[in-house]
């Protein structure tokens, strides 16, 4: 609790800076939003009127505080292009992206942890070298390439999964999972390699500690040592990286959602950028960055819950 209070000012400061940066980044984009909305060849008066309506005539800083004030109450404005409330548009598409990201992380962890344990307990063996080698190769594959190969194998050749489309979980859970598996898998494959590599190094470190030798000496089976004694102290940097890699997952989601034509936040962002829907872009970027900062803040807090060494030191 004390830690929470100590870190809170830092969190608020970061979030404010993130919002300012988002606003500046988007406001500096070229092109007058009014011209973009009305199209070329419209009378200057009409453009001036729309600028007035959108509040573009006011100074940048005032507009920022206005927007920030709205954002704090959950109002990110209304997209002048689609007429939709930005917040509504994000919330409508959020479940897809969250499900995709969570599935990807769960798949990646459930493959990476056993493999890393295998690798670490036979460190230096042929098995370890093979697993590490595959991990190394996976790190050289961009997400979109993985998606294309998965489509080629599982959708085009084998026909087991659909190549595009999305069915909401509430409509049919089974069909939803069937549709989501390929995209989630292509995201997971990239993360997997990173998780595996990290956990393997940490596990090898932990396995050399004295208490592991003790556990071995008293005749504890190797798998039990791994799961009961070694995994937890080795998992902290993995936890941090899972949090930090959320940015990578979101970046991957933009591409994967576009490839598989999934109605998620990433695709919304990409299309808003193509259409120069500035307010929408601004809102989505702020939303994503805020979520990212908050999640990593939570990961930091979890640290102290999981690791007594941090809890008592802090």
């Amino acid at each position, binding site marked *: 609790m004390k830690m929470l209070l100590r870190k809170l000012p830092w969190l608020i400061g970061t979030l404010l800076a*993130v919002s300012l940066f988002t606003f500046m980044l988007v406001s500096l984009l070229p092109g007058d939003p009014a011209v973009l909305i009305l199209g070329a060849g419209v009378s200057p008066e009409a453009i001036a009127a729309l600028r007035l309506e959108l509040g573009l005539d006011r100074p940048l800083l005032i507009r920022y505080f206005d927007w920030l004030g709205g954002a704090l109450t959950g109002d990110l404005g209304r997209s002048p292009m689609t007429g939709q409330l930005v917040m509504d548009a994000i919330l409508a598409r959020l479940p897809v992206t969250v499900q995709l990201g969570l599935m990807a992380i769960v798949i990646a962890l459930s493959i990476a942890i056993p493999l890393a344990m295998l690798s670490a307990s036979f460190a230096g063996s042929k098995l370890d070298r093979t697993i590490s080698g595959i991990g190394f190769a996976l790190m050289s594959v*961009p997400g*979109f390439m993985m998606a294309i190969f998965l489509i080629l194998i599982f959708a085009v050749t084998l026909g087991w999964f659909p190549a595009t489309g999305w069915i909401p979980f509430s409509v049919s859970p089974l069909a939803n999972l069937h549709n989501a598996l390929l995209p989630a898998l292509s995201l997971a494959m990239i993360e997997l390699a990173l998780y595996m590599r990290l956990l393997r190094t940490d596990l090898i470190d932990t396995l050399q500690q004295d208490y592991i030798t003790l556990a071995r000496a008293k005749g504890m089976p190797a798998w039990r040592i791994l799961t009961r004694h070694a995994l937890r102290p080795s998992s902290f940097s993995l936890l941090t990286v899972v949090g930090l890699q959320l940015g990578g997952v979101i970046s991957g989601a933009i591409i994967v959602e576009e490839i598989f034509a999934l109605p998620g936040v990433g695709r919304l962002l990409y299309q808003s950028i193509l259409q120069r829907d500035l307010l929408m872009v601004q809102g989505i970027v702020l939303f994503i960055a805020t979520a990212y900062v908050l999640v990593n803040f939570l990961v930091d807090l979890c640290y102290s819950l999981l690791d007594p060494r941090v809890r008592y030191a802090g």
Partner: protein
Amino acid sequence: MPVKKHPKIVSRAQNFARALQQVFGRRFGPGFWLAVVWLLIVAFCALFADWLPVRDPLDPVIANRLNGPFTSNLLGADGLGRDIFARLIHGARVSVVIGLTAVSIGMLIGGALGIIAGYFRGHFERALMAVLDVILAFPWLVLLLALVAFIGQSLFAISVAIGFLWIPAYARVARANTLSVVQREYVLAAKAMGASTSRILIKEVLPNVILPVLAYGLVAMGLVIIVESALAFLGLSVEAPQPTWGGMISEGKRHLATAAHVAVIPSVTMFLTVLSLNFVGDRLRSRFDIKESNL
């Protein structure tokens, strides 16, 4: 009459062979040299794309449309009948140029900021780290898409945008290494001898920080190529007529069911290149014993 042996010469030859083996064989293994050769080929293609005896990468020959490898075209033709082999060679140019420029930009700006922050500490360091934290709060692709929308899609603009993404990472590496170098005795000695700050930074700190920064460069270049291709895949990298690997994969996606080679061939080329960069970079880094945790 038996031939008289010359033990000295033999042993010298053996020494030489052993030295050769040490440099080329055991230390790095054949995989390393295979990767180096591949990278040299890619670099050569990028440099001499215009003079190599390949077809015009932009010339659509409708008759060759979607032809497979080893038919009318060495590696087949794409959806418009353009020669894939020629497009690969010309596309290498984009990857190599952006890889080099972006990494240099990140290295120079990020490295300089990191060294200054690590040496002078204080307000500047705190402010820099805070700004880096804010930049890192944005997923890389989100930031990149916004930057590209802002500065355009020329080869240089894309390089700058991707280079910008690398500033935080390099600033951190340089800062962490500077922090440990500054505490060493020779820096203290230089200070005691009355060396100026700029002399200490350039003569004492820089040479010790530059190695980890450079060693990270190859791996960074692999990542830059991935990032660029992702951008190209979304149609936001260097504009249309110029072939890029990511763009070729993106075009090939349309023909996955009928002519998979259009997407697969550039994918494999890119994969091999990034893998080689990672492999060579990783080996060099472990050779110089640079810890990943410092990043």
